[in-house]
């Protein structure tokens, strides 16, 4: 279980608080107006930003001070998920060993992950030779190999077209089911939230609200969400 315990994620005049729990295996959509702090929330959970106060707890363990790589989390960023000078196989291999000391078994696992994400045979290529959708698949393949119990997604599919995005969300759902991962996903599109995430948190007016059922929230939006959805 992920527990955000009286988190205060403010910086200067900006304020953002969160105080709630999320059960293992949940899928949570994070929705709200720009600048409200959706990315800040994921940055604090992912370990890229220290909170002003409060704790992040996973399965009873306080991980507030842990460096990003030591957390039970894989984050998929909006962009720059791949190192352009490394091959696809190396980019995925970084998920197994950050120093790229890979055994024969590791290479087999990388090939499996490439197969699972529909990238078979593309291992020796560089990211620059891949389409945007393929690049997203590489990031997912790495997430699959890292096998962390939490996946944080900061709109990694925002630049893809609608059809590709639906495809990626399908692949993501399959991978999350397979690894029983808890998924937190920022989205701008209420349809994504409905399709993918049974739970949604609204981030608005300085608060990341406790997760509620997505359908109910979107059908009867509170004023702040209604203003955002238009």
């Amino acid at each position: 279980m992920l527990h955000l315990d009286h988190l205060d994620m403010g910086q200067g005049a900006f304020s953002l608080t969160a105080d709630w729990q999320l059960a293992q295996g949940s899928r949570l959509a994070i929705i709200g107006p720009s600048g409200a702090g959706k990315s800040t929330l994921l940055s604090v959970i992912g370990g890229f930003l220290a909170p002003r106060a409060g704790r992040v707890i996973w399965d009873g363990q306080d991980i507030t001070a842990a460096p990003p790589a030591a957390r039970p989390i894989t984050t998929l960023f909006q962009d720059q998920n791949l190192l352009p000078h490394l091959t696809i196989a190396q980019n995925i291999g970084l998920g197994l060993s950050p120093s790229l000391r890979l055994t024969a078994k590791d290479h087999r696992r990388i090939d499996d992950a490439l197969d699972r994400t529909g990238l078979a045979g593309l291992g020796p290529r560089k990211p620059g030779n891949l389409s945007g959708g393929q690049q997203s698949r590489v990031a997912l393949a790495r997430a699959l190999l890292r096998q962390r119990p939490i996946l944080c997604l900061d709109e990694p599919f925002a630049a893809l077209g609608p059809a590709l995005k639906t495809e990626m969300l399908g692949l993501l759902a399959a991978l999350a089911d397979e690894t029983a991962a808890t998924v937190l996903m920022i989205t701008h599109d209420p349809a994504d939230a409905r399709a993918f995430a049974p739970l949604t948190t609204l981030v608005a007016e300085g608060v990341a609200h406790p997760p509620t059922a997505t359908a109910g929230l979107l059908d009867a939006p509170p004023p702040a969400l209604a203003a955002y959805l238009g």
Partner: protein
Amino acid sequence: MARRPVTLIAGGLAAVLLALLLAPLAVLGLRADSVALSGADLAALRFTLLQAAVSALLSVLLAVPVAKALARRRFVGRGALISLLGAPFLLPTIVAVLGLLTVFGRSGWVNDLLGALGLPQVSIYGFHGVVLAHVFFNMPLAVRMILQGWQAIPAERFRLAASLGFGPAETARHLEYPMLRAVLPGAALVIFGICLTSFAVALTLGGGPRATTVELAIYQALRFEFDLGAAARLALLQLAICALAFALATRFTVPSAFGAGKDAAGGPPAPAGWRRGADGVCLLLAGLFVMLPLLAIALRGLPGIMTLPPQVWAATLRSVVVALASTVLAMGLAVTLALAAARTRRVWPGLVATLPLAASSLVLGTGLFLIALPLTRPADLALPVTVLVNAMLALPFVYRVLAPEARSLEADYGRLADALGMIGFARLRWLILPRLARPLGFGAGLVAALSMGDLGVIALFASEQGATLPLLVQRLIGAYRMDTAASAALLLVSLSFALFWAFDAGGRRYAAS
């Protein structure tokens, strides 16, 4: 978040660097015999300031028409000409001086021509010789800085000017003068600062009571009179001048001279008529001015290059070792400080990396000489001290090359590397080296070439037998063995450019692979 190893290492290195910078200065303060300046000191001060001011002014004024012509004309060989203008920055001072002597010296090309025409001869020694050499080095640098300014004017601005029917005069008044007003003071101050610490030029072309820079006076006090008190006093004077110029320069935006040369689409309009001819003449003269001394060295030095005396080869080996060692040292410092600056987003790494600009080769050298003297023979420390001083003085330049690249590296991939746990060697091997290969190669090339050609602190420390190649060339010139000097100079300049090319091309190839 937890403090990272690179920040701690950078902090440690910064402390060592500060100590190495401040200890010599502190010793100078302790050893100076008095703070009252003698008549000779004042003469050196006056000459130093005057020649630096005139050199800076002339360099910048001559550079404006050349930069303007380069900005608005497109022709075959334009890129090569811009590269050629980058050459003097890497050119060993003593080689350039020898080249200028061959062209403008007593029996040089220009005087031969003047003599044949029945005109009076020109002399390259004294004030105007020093200024000529400084303009040779710095006019091309100014061209590149000003060209940057021209290229920074958005193409839309010129399109707007064209649609409003601006002629060349209106374009100059509304677009180009404002840019020049912003760029020229910074460029002039940089060149003024460079000329303040002129040593090798003054040593060869100046000298005597009427053409001695403070830097040269320090050397003479130490080497000829062995007057440690006077040397320390002069070094403090030099430090005060440099620190003042440095403080002044920080108040102006200093244009970058490294990025110039891209053929941005839609530059300034290129008017036809007499302006076209004038631009051509400007470019031709600038090209000749830079090329002739290099050509002179090549022509004069080539015949004797196979029969160079053995001491030249020994000096060559010393110089290459010094160059490579200072490169490793300077690049290690620069990359650590640049990464720390990018990681912490604080100013201290940049400040420490820039601080050596306020000192000069002979100031640091004199301080280190005074520290070394009670402990050992200074000649035994000649090479290590030269490595250290060269690395410290090159640091500000390479830091400026690396810092912006390190900043965007951290912004683009820092979080991803953190998320994947790429720390320490893994981060260096798989992220930093591949992404920074290009600026690292370019920076290493700069340090290697500058250090290879350096003639400063080594002149203070070296014994008769322990010379580096630039010092040996200077001694050969002093002994009027001009042909041997030219051959050794040709070897020196070839090695300097080869080192620059090898590092720069190596970085590019590594980045592309």
